[in-house]
């Protein structure tokens, strides 16, 4: 049986894998301040849905005990995976199919204070945009409200 | 499998605007809506209620077979034969024991003209004078006041004509929520430079459209209208040519208004004097002004006088009988105009023939092949009183829900449980149907053909799009068969035949033949006396429909100068956009219910602060008629000293008083005094 390994450096916490996983192996737990991606259990053989959908190629599927350097490679922008950095850090070697958690602090809306998305995700978006057109730290509801508030007179 | 898909153009079943839309039917099931941009009323637009039509047609809780309730309260399914036979036998027996007077009939503003016509014919041939319907609860004062002043009690101009108006006075109407399609034409007029004045004790989406909003004290509409008229006279802005050439009775009104003190009136009404002056000047001086009014005017103890004041104001300035100038009493249901035209009212026969006018009455009787017709009967609210007095023993209700729609529900409930026979003919198991001895499942509007008259007097044909579910039958079939069993007629009538009979009986429907309106998408606007008449969109352009062809000013008997004060709170009832009347339909549709799921009482923040209640807390609302528990919404949209409750929920009309307007016999839904008691958990 295979298991999933998520690179904590590459993952941006977008939830695409969780909605792609039909077996309930990747779960999302969300509170007001944090988003936690939880991986537990084993994958059926051919399924690579989560790996396919990941925008940052942060998911590897393998078997047995592996070192994360082995899976992601030491020099591929995720070199820091091998050196310990913070609590969000992978151990040097991990037994696949074991429970893993990736924790993200959510950026809060500057207008209403509601959570928006993980900072890593917003950074990823601003990197992909050709130039920063607007500030991303607004929640969807506030963006919707701001769209009309400026225009509507009454 | 081949999918049989076709589109049938039907009339919207909700408000009186009479929008048309295409219902897409696949394999006998409604699946979608197609908008019809070429329809004149709304250019194909539909409000959220209209958009819920498909959900309504496919509703799983529809009544699909006749139900009989036994003495011990259990219900069982019965056959149509059994149900109709039982009703007919019981009605006959009650007629023998107590006389035909002991049976009341409630018609419906939701069913077609043909069905209403046949229903009141059944009641009157059966011998009972007591036939009425819920127009009594919304616009009976308009019918009384406007027909007294002009000769006809209907809207004078079509809705799209509002666009041509240069000044629109909206008084006691919240059309943005109740007739959303009207707002397009008012906004168009505004874009063309019209001045919009709204008079409402609440801030609503309608008052947001207006240039000025007169936030009056509830129940002071009459004083305000008189103050406007007094100001017009004082400034000499009245249209004296029009008054001289086309009206009568002006002197009396003038004498009455001469002593009117505007400063004092402004204080009583609770608006600045300047606003009244601006309103008077704008209304009188614009080339064409319109008045839109609604239940904020009519549902009062003196509703008829208020409606008459609206008519006086229009006559004073000559703003009637032209494009963009007229009176727009917006009607609430898709066929409330038609049901009134068809004589489903206690004092009128079809074509507004007064029941106490013996000569004219006998002409109708001759057409029906009988000798005489019973004279004037009791109104909706009076029928309930008569049941409590033991005078009425049986009630036949077609598509109405009096427990929720009538004032003082506890009395209505008590009355209905006293009846020997209550027959309810409806599409859902309503609050009223729960009391019925026999419940008859009816077809919805798209499941039968018939004509509907909208608020503009536009008679439109709505063809049958699909079959009713299971054993449900069209109202015409039910009444027709019941009439047969009662021995009133021999054949089961078809909608087309019925309309041909209406052409004969009602003069202003004379040219509205089934062939003509079935062909035309736009329908015909009555009066349309003969086959070649194109219809009359604008009334009174040459003459008024009275005997001397002149309009008359009516001077109210009472003095508006002393408004009633309601301490501590005056209770206003009204509507919200996603619900419809007694809510028996809309409270069953989840897609609408999610916007306004439950009853809420709106209160002004400073009143709430005084009582120590906040948004979302529960209060007890207490009036002389009852006590109701509700959730509070704190919002500055109401005036200090008044609270608002929508009447789509059964709780609201447990509170409303039963005082009737002396002329139109409308209950004063909007004149209630209430107390709030904080309920802490």
């Amino acid at each position, binding site marked *: 049986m295979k298991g999933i390994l998520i690179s904590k450096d590459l993952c941006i916490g977008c939830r695409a894998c969780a909605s792609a996983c039909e077996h309930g192996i990747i779960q999302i737990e969300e509170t007001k301040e944090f988003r936690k991606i939880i991986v537990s259990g084993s994958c059926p053989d051919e399924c690579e849905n989560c790996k396919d959908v990941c925008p940052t190629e942060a998911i590897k599927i393998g078997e047995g005990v592996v070192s994360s350097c082995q899976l992601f490679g030491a020099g591929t922008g995720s070199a820091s995976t091998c050196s310990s950095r913070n609590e969000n850090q992978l151990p040097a070697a991990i037994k696949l199919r074991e429970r893993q958690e990736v924790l993200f602090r959510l950026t809060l809306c500057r207008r209403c204070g509601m959570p928006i998305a993980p900072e890593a995700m917003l950074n990823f978006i601003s990197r992909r945009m050709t130039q920063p057109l*607007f500030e991303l730290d607004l929640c969807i509801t506030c*963006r919707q409200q701001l769209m009309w508030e400026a225009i509507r007179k009454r | 499998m081949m999918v049989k898909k076709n589109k049938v153009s039907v009339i919207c079943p909700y408000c009186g605007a009479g929008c048309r839309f295409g219902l897409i039917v696949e394999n006998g099931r409604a699946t979608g809506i197609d908008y019809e941009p070429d329809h004149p009323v709304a250019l194909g637009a539909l409000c959220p209620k209209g958009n819920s039509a498909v959900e309504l047609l496919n509703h799983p809780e529809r009544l699909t077979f006749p139900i009989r309730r036994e003495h011990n309260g259990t219900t069982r399914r019965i056959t149509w034969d059994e149900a109709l036979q039982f009703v007919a036998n019981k009605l006959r027996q009650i007629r023998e024991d107590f006389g035909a007077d002991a049976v009341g009939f409630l018609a419906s503003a939701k069913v077609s003209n043909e069905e209403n016509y046949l229903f009141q014919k059944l009641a009157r041939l059966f011998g009972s004078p007591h036939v009425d319907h819920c127009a009594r609860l919304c616009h009976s004062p308009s019918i009384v006041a406007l027909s007294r002043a002009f000769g006809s009690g209907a809207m004078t101009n079509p809705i799209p004509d509002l666009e041509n108006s240069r000044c629109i006075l909206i008084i006691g109407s919240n059309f943005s929520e109740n007739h959303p399609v009207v707002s397009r034409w008012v906004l168009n007029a505004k874009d063309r430079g019209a001045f919009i004045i709204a008079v409402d004790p609440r801030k609503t989406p309608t008052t947001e459209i207006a240039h000025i909003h007169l936030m009056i004290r509830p129940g002071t509409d009459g004083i305000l209208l008189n103050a406007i008229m007094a100001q017009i006279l004082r400034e000499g802005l009245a249209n004296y040519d029009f008054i001289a050439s086309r009206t009568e009775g002006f002197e009396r009104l003038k004498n009455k208004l001469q002593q009117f003190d505007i400063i004092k009136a402004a204080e009583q009404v609770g608006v600045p004097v300047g606003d009244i002056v601006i309103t008077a000047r704008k209304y009188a001086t614009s080339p064409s002004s319109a008045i839109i009014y609604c239940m904020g005017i009519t549902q009062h103890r003196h509703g008829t006088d208020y409606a008459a004041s609206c008519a006086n104001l229009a006559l004073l300035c000559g703003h009637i009988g032209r494009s963009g100038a007229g009176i727009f009493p917006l009607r609430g249901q898709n066929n409330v105009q038609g049901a009134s035209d068809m004589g489903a009212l206690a004092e009128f026969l079809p074509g507004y023939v007064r029941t106490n006018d013996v000569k004219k009455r006998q002409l109708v009787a001759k057409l029906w092949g009988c000798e005489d017709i019973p004279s004037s009967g009791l109104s909706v609210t009076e029928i309930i009183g008569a049941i409590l007095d033991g005078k009425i023993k049986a009630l036949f209700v077609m598509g109405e829900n009096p427990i929720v729609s009538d004032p003082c529900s506890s009395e209505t409930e008590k009355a209905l449980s006293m009846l020997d026979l209550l027959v309810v003919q409806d599409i859902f198991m309503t609050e009223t149907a729960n009391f019925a001895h026999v419940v008859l499942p009816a077809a919805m509007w798209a499941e039968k053909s018939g004509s509907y008259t909208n608020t503009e007097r536009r008679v439109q044909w709505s063809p049958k799009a699909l079959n009713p579910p299971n054993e449900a039958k069209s109202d015409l079939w039910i009444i027709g068969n019941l009439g047969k069993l009662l021995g009133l007629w021999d054949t089961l009538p078809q909608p087309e035949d019925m309309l041909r009979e209406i052409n004969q009986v009602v003069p202003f429907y004379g040219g509205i033949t089934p062939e003509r309106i079935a062909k035309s998408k736009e329908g015909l606007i009555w009066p349309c006396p003969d086959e070649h008449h194109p219809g009359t969109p604008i009334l009174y352009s040459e003459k008024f429909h009275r005997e001397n062809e002149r309009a008359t000013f009516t001077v109210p008997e009472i003095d508006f100068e002393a408004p009633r004060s309601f301490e501590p709170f005056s209770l206003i009832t009204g509507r919200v956009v996603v619900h419809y009347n007694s809510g028996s339909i809309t409270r069953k549709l989840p897609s609408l219910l999610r916007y306004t799921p439950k009853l809420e009482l709106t209160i002004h923040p400073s009143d709430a602060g005084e009582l120590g209640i906040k948004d979302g807390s529960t209060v007890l609302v207490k009036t002389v008629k009852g006590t109701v528990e509700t959730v509070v919404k704190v919002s500055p949209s109401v005036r200090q000293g008044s609270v608002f409750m929508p009447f789509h929920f059964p709780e609201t009309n447990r509170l409303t008083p039963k005082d009737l307007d002396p002329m139109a016999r409308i209950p004063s839904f909007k004149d209630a005094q209430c107390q709030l008691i904080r309920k802490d958990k």
Partner: protein
Amino acid sequence: MKEIFVRIDRCVGCRSCELACAVEHSRSKTLFGAISEVPRPKKRVYVEYIEHRKVPFLCRHCEDAPCVKACRTGALSQDPVTRIVTHNPDRCIGCWLCAMTCPYGMINREEERRIAVKCDRCPEREEPACVNACPTKALVFAEEQEFSKLVRRETLSKLLPGYAS
């Protein structure tokens, strides 16, 4: 601050302003160069023929500009001193909220780049190109007082011929 004033009664509808505007906003800045340019230079002033009258329309550079308020990406910005509303094509995403909110219909669409295009009052010139090109002096680039003075003098000359000249 100088404004462009319009004397409608003087406009003969020759469309010189439209042409001059398009040329000014071309790369070559010459008429012949502008014609062959791709994308074709767009005009930012419009002459409408209404009821036999010819009326030139220019961006008013409103004081409380609704287009600037509506723009969510910062493509439209207003100079706090000169009140001139400028459009940055790099930031424009073509959402048309500005065109939707402009009460005078002065924002148009550039087909090729699919973004908004509007008057920038010729930042490289002393006097805007349209004013310069107007043969009848229907467009006047002047201070408000100057323009009032001009109108007064004109009225006077109408009343008392020969006085003002």
